[in-house]
């Protein structure tokens, strides 16, 4: 299976303090889906990814396939495997369409 890599024109970083706060909130059972932890600048415009989106983005280093992403995330988030696979596929598909990710 082909590996996924990030568009090298996009600059990005993990907001470490924010990420720690979000993980703490997640552990406390709060909904963190609208809280950003990764910042990207795409064509001069700033975007944010939430915790799961940010983890997927970080893992797309050209060394991992879609299956590898699901495998890595299944160890981090307590989600049923089929649901996780569907969510990852949908997210990756969206970023591929935007040109933010590509197959290496």
């Amino acid at each position, binding site marked *: 299976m082909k590996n996924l890599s990030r568009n090298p024109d996009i600059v990005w970083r993990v*907001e470490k303090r*924010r990420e720690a706060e979000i993980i703490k909130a997640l552990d406390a059972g709060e909904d963190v889906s*609208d*809280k*950003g932890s990764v910042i990207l600048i795409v064509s001069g415009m700033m975007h944010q990814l939430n915790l799961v989106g940010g983890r997927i983005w970080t893992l797309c280093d050209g060394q991992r396939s879609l299956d590898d992403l699901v495998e890595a995330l299944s160890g981090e988030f307590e989600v049923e495997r089929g649901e996780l696979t569907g969510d990852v596929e949908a997210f990756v598909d969206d970023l591929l369409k935007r040109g933010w990710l590509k197959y290496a």
Partner: protein
Amino acid sequence: MTLDLLDTPLRVSWRLSPQCSSAVANLPTIAERLVEAGVFQVTLEGRPLAHPAVHEVLCIFAAGGLRVDLSCEGTAAELNSLGSGMPVRQIALDVASCLATDDFTVLSEQLETIRRKGFDPALLLVPRHDNVARIPRLFEFCRVHRVAKFKLPNVGIDVSVKNLSGAELVTPGDLLRLSRELPPDAASGLELEVHDLFLWELFCPDCQDSRSEYGGCQAGNSLGYIDAGGNLYPCASWPERLGSLLDHSVEALWALPARRRIREEIAETPEGCRGCRDLSICHGGCRGLARTFNRSHGSRDPLCGGPRR
């Protein structure tokens, strides 16, 4: 998704001129701190090309993957220092001195010198009361001389550069006069980078949607400013010093209660903007200038003529 408080700024402007009060030996420390902080982009203002440490600073930024823009006044010292292959994304030629002498021949020669060194220069003008009416002529100059980009940044209030009274700022009346004289296609074909919403809507009336992602004043969040002494501020238009980058990291200064309080202040709706139909677009505009110069009008952006109904 709303923009949360960032760990450190994403874009920083840094005043770097030969008369910098920071010792040359200190500048690499500041540059390294910006790299460590994960800043994406640095704009070097003033006359950075004439500064003896500029090459060392640029090397640090290049090694750290930072994107660097710099401004240039077009002096011989700056243009001689500009080397082909310098790790700079863009050079913006400040046209203020040409406007003062009204000598555009010099400006075209400066542009050609920068081009010969392998760069595609932009033009830059800090819009003020005494120069805003000249902007259409500068747009025309850009078209004739194949300049693709024009930058209209915010007015800095760094007292070490100039002590502003507020009378220097563009007024709503200036904008009204300009709007009457501005040809409909004045900015067509130009890539504009406009800080102020009220200038932007004048020059870009057909691109309202492109500002839909704007979430309000970014002073003290994604923006920061460093003065010539190495002090970090929320932005060039906000007069509150957070601390020295010679003594502290960017992360430490961005984690201060003072920075949090500034962001809380920015999050409040200015009194003078209440009931305005366009508040969701401008979010109060330039909050630093409003706070400093327009408290008598409910801390509304000084360029705004009043709440729109």
